[in-house]
């Protein structure tokens, strides 16, 4: 098995990078995604690649793994030039990756997802299903994932899927392991297991490229760093020789205040009351209230059912019982259209599926939920649409060639900004943000946080679902913790400490609470 | 115009029967001298397809259109338009309602055909027994008329019992399947009567494949070239058809004389048809060309290479 522990030298080998990319260029229609960048990966070392959204990080990953072909530059493996015409070539050369988006097959079993393309064969050259299952089980166990390799992938939650993606990367006997924002979809416990895994791989002498927007993470596990900005190489070096603010400075070109916005919440009257909300399989007994000007955090491990509940609140799914009061009046919301009319909007967490319509231009995305506002008697008014789109995208500091650019051509973070702009433009009373800063860079994150503070000050009520502790603690006035479809705690003030939240979320020491 | 253009519009291109008719029309043309035959038709046997073809012919301002219709009524408006623009319109083989044409040429008289198909079956059933009909589509005009005529004369053939009528839609595989279904449903069946050239071939094949040659006789209307094998194998004792070459020839002749103005489409009138004699019109302005002709082992060799 490729992940078996083999001893490796303690001192990181200095000198020859195992994989070096020089002068790599990649042009997309209208965008020069990479402009002669340089990247070196050393055996037994973790190199963190940092940069703003759209800096070109994922693009270089795709070039490294044979999904994109570079338009210029060279790839050197152990000093010899090599090309990766397909993903299989890259895998054969020992380069494997956990990609930013989960690229797996819902209809296939977990085992097959792990081994597709390099599955064990019988002597007749036919696929050996039994061997495949056994090997898959071994890998899953080794990373501490309790997943049956025989079930269909569709039956797993997002976090489990991500663990399958990690297993897939490990199933290839790799010399270079690339991880593009691997912790974005994971919760606390799994993240720690991932760190251990990285250590293990390091010890095996593998070169690791680690991409993340979370600085605590980077400083915790990286040995080296490389910085890209707007598709250009900016800097590289040893991580212990830079400070966090240096790195941010290199990345953004200015210093960013990492502190969350200071605000003194002025809570207005109650705007939303949820009483006895329940669903047959997803959640039950949800009760809480929300006031104007308040930011209410929803914390929990990934898969706690927060998203499900929020989605039923805006009418995507029907609750089996329970009531919603808006400004004291009972309202029944049967569809997002009705929710938007009531002034409740939901910014979904799954940007690609639920948030953005990637083939349509930015301005059409932004105005879609507010067409009633920009149109006249059901007829479109393009000028007003552009005005609205411009106003909100610029407030969020969107980077795009034009408002007519398809959203799919933007980087992940910039897509997220379009999605947030889209729901803010409806001028809501209550806004529910589900993992609003997932995958967006530090600069934009600060912009989103500032903006949230601004909105709260204007009297908007905000619900923020987040699995990121610092964000929850830094932004919320009050936090509700969910576990397994129930509210297990509501904390505010001094009680809001990382320990309390994590303890409630994980259910430590309170097994019989419910 | 120096040359008269006569369009021979058929139900669909690629059907042996109509190809033979086209040959006959060409023969008439060379006999007449100053005539050009435009042989055309839709790809599938639909009225809409024929309308498109006829529209194109109207635009070309042909002198006459002789059509074998896929639908008695649906062509009427278009053909009326053609007549308004001075084009002579006749129908042949499969007719058009009277207001859509001047003259209709029946290949034979319907009662004769109706009688012929049941007689062919009865001749080989001295002890009587069950027969079934395999027709073309449920909407084919002439098949339905013949079957009706056949039913009218059934009492003349005591002991012959018609069990059912099925439809093969003029598709080889459907007809085959329907014929196989008949053989299963009616184990005592003595004959299948298929008054359609597609159906009769498929039925003969089905009988041969079911190993029922000698037990079940396939008869009806078919082309010698297509039926030669069935007659040789004994799946079909005999079948009938008029000569499509003669039919095409006659249609072209009639169209020519009407367009030229040397014959008139009135009840009782006689329209010359060259070597086929003359067509006598009845009150519906219809006339019959000739008797159907019977083919069996004695003459199939001679005709199978002709049409």
């Amino acid at each position, binding site marked *: 098995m490729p992940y078996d522990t083999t001893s490796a030298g303690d001192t990181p080998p200095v000198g020859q990078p195992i994989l070096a990319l020089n002068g790599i260029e990649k042009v997309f229609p209208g965008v020069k995604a990479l402009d002669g960048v340089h990247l070196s990966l050393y055996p037994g070392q973790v190199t963190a690649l940092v940069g703003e959204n759209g800096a070109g990080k994922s693009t270089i990953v795709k070039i490294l793994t044979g999904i994109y072909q570079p338009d210029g530059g060279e790839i050197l493996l152990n000093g010899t030039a090599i090309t990766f015409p397909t993903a299989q070539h890259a895998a054969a050369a020992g380069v494997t990756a956990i990609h930013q988006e989960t690229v797996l097959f819902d209809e296939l079993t977990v085992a097959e997802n792990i081994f597709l393309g390099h599955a064990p064969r019988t002597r007749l050259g*036919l696929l050996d299903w039994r061997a495949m299952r056994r090997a898959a089980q071994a890998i899953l166990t080794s990373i501490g994932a309790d997943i049956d390799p025989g079930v269909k992938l569709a039956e797993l939650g997002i976090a489990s899927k991500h663990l399958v993606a990690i297993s897939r990367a490990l199933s290839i006997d790799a010399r270079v392991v690339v991880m593009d924002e691997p912790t974005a979809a994971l919760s606390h416990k799994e993240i720690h297991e991932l760190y251990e895994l990285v250590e293990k791989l390091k010890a095996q002498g593998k070169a690791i490229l680690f991409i993340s927007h979370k600085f605590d993470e980077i400083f915790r596990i990286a040995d080296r760093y490389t910085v890209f900005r707007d598709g250009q190489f900016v800097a590289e070096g040893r991580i212990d020789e830079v400070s966090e603010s240096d790195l941010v400075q290199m990345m953004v070109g200015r210093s960013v205040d990492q502190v969350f916005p200071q605000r003194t919440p002025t809570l207005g009257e109650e705007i939303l009351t949820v009483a006895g909300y329940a669903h047959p399989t997803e959640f*039950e007994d949800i009760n809480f209230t929300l006031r104007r000007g308040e930011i209410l955090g929803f914390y929990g491990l990934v898969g706690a059912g927060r998203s499900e509940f929020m989605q039923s609140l805006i009418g995507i799914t029907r609750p089996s019982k329970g009531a919603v009061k808006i400004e004291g009046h009972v309202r029944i919301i049967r569809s997002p259209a009705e929710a938007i009319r009531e002034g409740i909007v939901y910014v979904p967490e799954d940007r690609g599926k639920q948030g953005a319509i990637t083939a349509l231009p930015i301005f059409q995305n932004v105005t879609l939920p507010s067409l009633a506002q920009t149109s006249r008697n059901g007829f479109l008014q393009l000028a007003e649409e552009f005005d609205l789109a411009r106003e909100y995208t610029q407030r969020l500091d969107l980077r795009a060639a034009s408002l007519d650019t398809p959203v799919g051509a933007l980087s992940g973070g910039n897509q997220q900004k379009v999605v947030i702009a889209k729901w803010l433009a409806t001028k809501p009373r209550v806004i529910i943000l589900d993992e609003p800063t997932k995958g967006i860079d530090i600069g934009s994150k600060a912009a989103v946080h500032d903006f949230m503070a601004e909105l709260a000050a204007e009297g908007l009520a905000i619900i923020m679902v987040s699995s990121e502790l610092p964000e929850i603690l830094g932004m919320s006035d009050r936090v509700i913790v969910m576990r397994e479809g129930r509210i297990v705690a509501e904390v505010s003030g001094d009680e809001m400490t990382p320990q309390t939240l994590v303890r409630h979320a994980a259910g430590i020491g309170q097994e019989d609470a419910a | 115009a120096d040359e008269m253009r006569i369009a021979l519009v058929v139900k669909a291109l690629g059907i042996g029967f109509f190809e033979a008719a086209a040959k006959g029309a060409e023969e008439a043309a060379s006999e007449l001298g100053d005539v050009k035959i435009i042989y055309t038709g839709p790809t599938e046997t639909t009225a809409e397809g024929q309308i498109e073809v006829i529209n194109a012919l109207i635009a070309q301002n042909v002198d006459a259109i002789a059509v074998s219709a896929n639908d008695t009524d649906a062509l009427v408006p278009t053909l009326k338009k053609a007549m308004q623009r001075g084009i002579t319109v006749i129908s042949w083989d499969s007719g058009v309602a009277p207001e859509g044409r001047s003259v209709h040429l029946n290949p034979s008289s319907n009662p004769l055909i109706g009688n012929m198909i049941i007689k062919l079956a009865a001749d080989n059933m001295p002890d009587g027994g069950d027969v079934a009909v395999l027709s073309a589509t449920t909407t084919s005009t002439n098949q339905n008329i013949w079957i009706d005529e056949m039913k009218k004369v059934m009492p003349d053939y005591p002991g012959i019992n018609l069990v059912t009528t099925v439809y093969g839609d003029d598709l080889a595989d459907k007809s085959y399947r329907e014929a196989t279904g008949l053989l299963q449903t009616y184990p005592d069946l003595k004959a299948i009567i298929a008054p359609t050239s597609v159906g009769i071939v498929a039925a003969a094949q089905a009988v041969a494949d079911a190993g029922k040659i000698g037990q079940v006789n396939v008869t009806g209307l078919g082309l010698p070239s297509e039926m030669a094998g069935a007659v040789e194998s004994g799946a079909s004792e005999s079948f009938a058809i008029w000569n499509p070459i003669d039919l095409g020839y006659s249609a072209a002749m009639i169209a020519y004389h009407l367009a030229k103005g040397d014959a008139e489409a009135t009840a009782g009138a006689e329209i010359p048809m060259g070597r086929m004699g003359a067509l006598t019109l009845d009150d519906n302005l219809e006339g019959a060309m000739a008797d159907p002709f019977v083919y069996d082992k004695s003459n199939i060799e001679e005709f199978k290479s002709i049409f």
Partner: protein
Amino acid sequence: MIPLRLTREVLLAFALLVLLALVATRFPGFVAPSNLAAVFNDTSALIILALGQFIVILTRCIDLSVAANLALTGMVCALLNTVAPDLPIVVTLALALALGATLGAVNGFFVWKLDIPPIVVTLGTMVIFRGIIFLISDGQWVNAHEMSARFTAFPRYEMLGIPMLSWCAVLVIALVYLMVTRTSLGRSFFAVGGNPHAAVYTGIDVGRTQFLAFVISGTLAGLAGYLWVARYAVAYVDIAGGFELDVVAACVIGGAAISGGAGSVVGIVLGALFLGVIKNALPVVDISPFWQLAISGSAIIIAVALNARSGRAKGRIILRKAEHAHEPV
């Protein structure tokens, strides 16, 4: 896990049995083994084509040109037979397979290299293939007596009391089953249809895989072309006209997801048999021919609706206590 995965197929098999029982009440002879064998034989062409179509549908494509491919290959075989009546059947078969594969490759080429949606490509080639038949045959039929005895005998030749046509279907079923479950090409069909984007990340060439699916579908259509023409002993422009819809219907009744990536060989065979039984049963149970079309249409709708119910994805369940209450039945 095994019974769970088979629900769809079991349901379909059950529906098939009910259908047979219904027919038997009206006409007991229908369920006699000899007649069932005849029904299978009659459905063989549909099974062969449906399995080819299944592979294409797996890759998120559709092949509307199968029937036209069948007709063209059949016509070429028939014409070839008229000029070279003594050609060994193996050669005819090889030619049919090769020509079918070539026509499939034409479809696949446009899908792969020019990235034209499959439904558009095959809508085009469907009429083009038919047109070519017209051109090469000059619109004429090739009739039974013009074919050599050897040519028409092959599908009828009986082995162990079962005609060669049925054996061909059995062989195709076995081969496709093996390929789909036990080869990496077979699995890549599922991958490409299930998530083309992810397939690229797995190193699968999506276009090339789709190309191969079309080649396989074409090859099977070519095989069916020869068999069809030899069996009905006639070839003309319109043979198997509209049959592509039956083929697609068999696939969806059999549980192939039209959006790709899902379905099973057993399901497809059952789906084809379901249609085959309806087609063969309606004439013998003495239902007015005018009712046949409506009945088969309703059967398709009902089958698909049932299918969708049994195949509805089992969602994730968060609440602990609900987990057991919602075990699939």
